[in-house]
């Protein structure tokens, strides 16, 4: 695949300073940070779907918000089509948002309850001052809604969000994101709030949009099973860092990092005959303020060694497009 890069993220950091009390300041205690994203790099080719997978608190949502400019990176570069994005960079945030759109997790929360479907879907056009002609604008809105499966369009145009089901709302969100015909979609857990039978519809829709429009997708989720069938590549995150990344097939069938192995083992299998040994990690993700020394996964790792407590593992390449950060892989 030699498609051009849509997104190139290099050494991205995002720290949120922890509020200090007056006492902390007086005592000259050092400023602490929540290290939500801690040195993350990845690329996304045109038309590709990259799934970012991890538990809550691993920094995946922060990555999404940083990519779309809702958060400013503490350090690092985000290149959109080889151009630097951000305040005072080549591509301004407003320009970026002409080409990149975000789909939020909760379709009950991400729609203004007082806006009609038409208002919501046409809002990006209005914000960017595009298609001022009423008919042209309507035609574009109509096309986006049809693409998102809101047919017949007339039935939906003047509805308010509370008149729609969760799946319909998420289609409205998707229509609003597609109306600018973006090159990049960032989807933050787009189906986790929906019923199982509706999930499949939305996933199929996203897949269809990608085939039809060639849009690239960053798909953020905690559920490996939903991405298994349509991501090209998977990045597994733990505590602010990507611990394993590679083609979806490679990562799912040949996981190298102990965390990835555990995540895959706990995916529920919808067949009691296929119940298998599950690798359940005990405890919970430590807080991202005081990261563990050495490998950040070692306190929960079932195969941790003495070395893991002191040495922060570097990425080891396993295949042409598969890498993992684990000391066990060092020969």
């Amino acid at each position: 695949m030699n498609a051009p890069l849509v997104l190139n993220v290099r050494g991205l950091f995002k720290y949120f300073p922890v509020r200090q009390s007056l006492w902390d300041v007086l005592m000259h205690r050092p400023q602490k940070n929540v290290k939500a994203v801690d040195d993350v790099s990845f690329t996304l080719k045109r038309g590709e779907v990259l799934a970012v997978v991890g538990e809550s608190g691993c920094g995946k949502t922060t990555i999404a918000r940083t990519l779309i400019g809702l958060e400013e990176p503490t350090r690092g570069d985000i290149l959109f089509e080889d151009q630097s994005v951000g305040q005072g960079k080549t591509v301004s945030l407003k320009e970026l948002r002409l080409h990149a759109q975000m789909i939020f997790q909760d379709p009950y929360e991400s729609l203004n309850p007082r806006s009609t479907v038409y208002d919501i879907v046409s809002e990006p056009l209005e914000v960017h001052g595009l298609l001022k002609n009423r008919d042209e604008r309507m035609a574009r809105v109509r096309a986006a809604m049809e693409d998102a499966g809101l047919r017949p369009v007339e039935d939906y145009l003047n509805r308010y969000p509370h008149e729609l089901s969760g799946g319909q709302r998420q289609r409205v969100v998707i229509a609003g994101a597609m109306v600018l015909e973006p090159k990049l979609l960032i989807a933050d857990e787009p189906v986790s709030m929906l019923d199982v039978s509706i999930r499949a519809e939305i996933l199929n829709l996203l897949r269809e949009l990608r085939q039809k429009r060639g849009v690239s997708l960053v798909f953020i989720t905690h559920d490996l099973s939903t991405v298994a069938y349509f991501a090209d590549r998977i990045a597994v995150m733990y505590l602010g860092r990507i611990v394993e990344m590679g083609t979806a097939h490679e990562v799912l069938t040949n996981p190298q990092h102990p965390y990835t192995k555990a995540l895959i083992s706990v995916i529920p299998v919808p067949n009691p005959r296929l119940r298998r040994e599950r690798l359940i990690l005990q405890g919970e993700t430590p807080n991202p303020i005081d990261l563990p020394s050495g490998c950040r996964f070692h306190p929960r790792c079932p195969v941790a060694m003495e070395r893991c407590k002191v040495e922060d593992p570097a990425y080891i390449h396993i295949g042409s497009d598969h890498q993992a950060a684990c000391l066990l892989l060092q020969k």
Partner: protein
Amino acid sequence: MHNLTEFWRTFRRNKLGLLGGFLILTALLAAIFAPLLTPYHPTDVIRDANGIGMTFAPPSAHGPLGTDDAGRDVWSELVYGARISLTVGFLAGFIAMFVGSLFGITAGYFGGWIDNLLMRVTDVLLVIPDLPLMLVLVATLRQMQLNVSPLVIIILVIGLLYWTSTARLIRSQVLTIKERQFVARARAIGAGNAHIVRKHILPQIMPLIVANTVLTISTAILVESGLAFLGLGDPTKPSWGTMLNFAFDRNAVTNGAWWFYLPPGLAIVWVSLGCVLLGNVLEEMLNPRLTTHHLEGDENMISIAAGQGSD
């Protein structure tokens, strides 16, 4: 609440709200059609057969509410007084709401030092006792021979002092709304602050503003009555408060002329009660309906099976 007829349908069922609306509406109509409702002009002196002014005459055929110390018709004074009281109340109320909303939205939306600055100003105003401050302000401004009507001074003083609680209320609302995901979505689309405030913040807090305006109007009418009662009103344009002031100054109580001091007092209660009832009901009704339980669904919920999905 997107649709006026639907709004009316819900409102109609609420008895207290209807009563409040009725109270305010009658007062407004009386003020507007004052000349049609009164047998005399409020400054006319009613004279008996001998041409002597009838002072403190009880209610009779001459005047439905009797006469005051100068022989003027109390009913006519009352109805014309509504014009003054309501004008001051409404204008001061609107000014207070405007300033309060502006401060509340700006502080809540932008946060940081702007929020800090505006809220400290609000705090200072909140802790100073209102009535003494207003007395001093109104009295001082009137001393300054400013060539403006005392009523304008009262309107401005009330309007510019009574926005603090509104500002705090709206600020707290804006603080929650701006964290909602649809605001994040608007920002992700590329919307600027003006667009977000206009399209996403204002529509959410508009009901609150409307309901609060009605409540503030009632406060403004009460405060104006208080100031006028203490003698700070415009004697040439008597409001209900001014009437009370006259009544007490001219010994209406010792003369047993209850028809002089009771009606303006009741009129003040009439309107402020109306405002409070209406305001509370509006606040309850217009509260944005943000969640629906799945069992309830919605009347208009679309459940079309055909033409959906990608298969």
